[in-house]
Structure formats: structure tokens, C-alpha cells
């Protein structure tokens, strides 16, 4: 349940930015979460719901852009979408693949007023 401490970091960053802008509340938070980032979306949402009420994000809408993981094969350079970090290259069957996208845990923006 590391999502709880991740949510803590998210809220801390978002609140700092909101305060810098002299805002009173955060009405929306937009994030990028990669499909192989190690974040379980259900756990993340659960953590948000339990932590939000006592923060500036009390009534904030949490928008999550899911970033589909992509890997590149080190042997044949084929780039392909993957559901996990251990898919064989669909072209040459090599397991020497590296994730090039999908590990994001990033705050994009907040909407404040």
C-alpha cells in the first residue's frame, strides 16, 4: 500500500503549488500514471478518497491519464506496446526489451481558485 505515501507526496506538491498561487482550494488535479509504474489505480483512488477530506483537495476531481507502456527490443529495435515489463519481443522473441514509456507517476497540473 505504498499508494498511500505516494498520495501524500502528491498532495504535498499540489498544496505547495496552490499556496504559492495564493489559492484557497484545488478543484482539479491532473496526473499521468504509467501502466507499469508500480501504482495500482484502485489503491491510489482509495488512498485519495481517504486522505482528501482534510486537505485543499477536499472537493477536487482527480483526473488520471493512463500512459500505455511501450518497450523497445534491444536486439531488433522493434517498439511495441506491452502490458508488463517482461513481454518477449513480438517480432524476434527476444526478452532483451526495455521499457521506454509507462513508468510515469507525474502531476501534470492543478486547477485552483
Amino acid at each position, binding site marked *: 500500500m505504498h499508494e498511500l*505515501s505516494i498520495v501524500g507526496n502528491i498532495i504535498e506538491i499540489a498544496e505547495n503549488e496552490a499556496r504559492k498561487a495564493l489559492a484557497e482550494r484545488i478543484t482539479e488535479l491532473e496526473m499521468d500514471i504509467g501502466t507499469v509504474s508500480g501504482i495500482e489505480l484502485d489503491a491510489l483512488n482509495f488512498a485519495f478518497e481517504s486522505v482528501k477530506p482534510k486537505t485543499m483537495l477536499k472537493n477536487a476531481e482527480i483526473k488520471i491519464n493512463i500512459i500505455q507502456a511501450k518497450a523497445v527490443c534491444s536486439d531488433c529495435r522493434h517498439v511495441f506496446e506491452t502490458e508488463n*515489463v517482461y513481454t*518477449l519481443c513480438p517480432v524476434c522473441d527476444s526478452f532483451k526489451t526495455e521499457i521506454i514509456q509507462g513508468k510515469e507517476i507525474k502531476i501534470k497540473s492543478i486547477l485552483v481558485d
Partner: protein
Amino acid sequence: MCTTCGCEGNGNKISMTVFGEKNKSNTQKHSHSHEHHSHEHEHEHEHEHRHKHSHKINIEVDVLSQNNLTAERNRGWFEAKNIFSINMMSSPGSGKTSILERTIKDMKDKLNFYIIEGDQQTMNDAERIGNAGAPVIQVNTGNGCHLDAEMINKAVKQLNVKDNSLVIIENVGNLVCPSLFDLGESKRIVIMSTTEGEDKPVKYPTIFERADICIINKIDLLPYLNYDLEKAKNYALRVNHHLQFIEVSATTGEGMEKWYELLLSLID
């Protein structure tokens, strides 16, 4: 509720205790530097420019950036003091502490060990390591499921780690959460044991993907188990084809020499 760890208002107690130092336990509400957001902002003057309208602020920041920054500070501190550091991770019961105990007993004349023990509760592991002959600090994370860079930053200072040494961090027994948190280590080691399923690496790929070395422990039990060592290694290689394997038994000592050779070669 605290926003960092989700603990209730009275705080998740993270404590650090150096083995052998009684009553010097440094208990703190949080080792990381966030604040409970209960403070009032008193502004002496009116903010005429206070934004009443809704507007967007672009942040574009990695959520783990604060941890990663602290980890890089740790890395710089280690580098300046010529310290090699290892982050050991595994599920509970795979033998992290047993491997460490044996390593310390066999190698303490050759290496200056400093151990950081992460567990939710108890001093048990620190006592085992302390009795094996290495300076050790126990970090009790309370409800926390992993160590973070801030905890390590505090722990190495409280443990008074000397130059030219080897810091081994035994992370909280957990095959999921510790993988995301860079501690500033030089190498990451993941341990699996023959009493677990061979498919652990594909079930919990993140931790294997981000490791440098994989120790397979309890090989003395192989004759009694249906564990297929090659299959396990193949699964791990599918997740991370850079992984280097060491097979050991912390109980019988089998394979430990190879582990020591690797350890010495890493430090050189």
C-alpha cells in the same frame, strides 16, 4: 489524517534505535519533512491580488522527485565518504537477515559493515545483526511498508557511519512497495528463496526489474522441494536481462564464498 502516510492525527511513529544504545531512541512523528496541514497562514496585509477566479497551474513534476532528490543527496554523501551502499529487498522470510548475519560473521575482518534494518516493529533484527558484530540501527516504520530516502539520510548520521565502509540497508520485507523508492544506494539486491514460487519475478516484476543482483537463498533445501532453479532464473531474466545471480544457503554456507567474491569485486 496525515497526508503523507495516511496515519491518524496522533501520527505514525517512525523510530530509530542504534543497537546497544539504550533509551536513545529517536522517536519522531515522521522522519520525512512534511507538515501536518493544520497550521494557519496569517497574512498581515490584504492580498489585493488574491485570485478569485479558477485557473490552471502547470506543475509537470514527478511525484517521487522529493524522494529522488534526497536519494541523490545520500548518494553524494556516500560518494564523498567512499561508502558503498546496498539496498536489500525481498518478501518476508526469504532470509535477508540470515544472509547478512553470516556475511558479517565471515567478512567483518575485511569489510567495515554498517547495517540499517527496516521493519515495521521490533528490535529483533537489529539484535541479531548487532550480535553478529556490526554496528546497526533499527528503523521501525510503524505502519509504513518501505524505507524512503529521508529515513536513510537520518539513519546513516545517527549510526555515525565512518568513511571507507559498506552500508547495507535491509528494507522492510515486502516485494512491492520498496521498489519505487530510491534510497541512494550503489546497488540493489533482490532475494528470493527456493521455498517461494519460481514465478515470483513475473508476479512482482517491478522489484526484479529495478535490481542489479538476485540472490537465490535456501539452495540446501532443493532436494526436498519441487523448485526449478533454472525456471526461476529464466522468469527473472525475462523481467530484467541484466540481472546477475548468486545461489546460496545462509544456513549451510554453500555458495556464500561466491557472494563474498562478488561483494569484494563491487567495492574495489
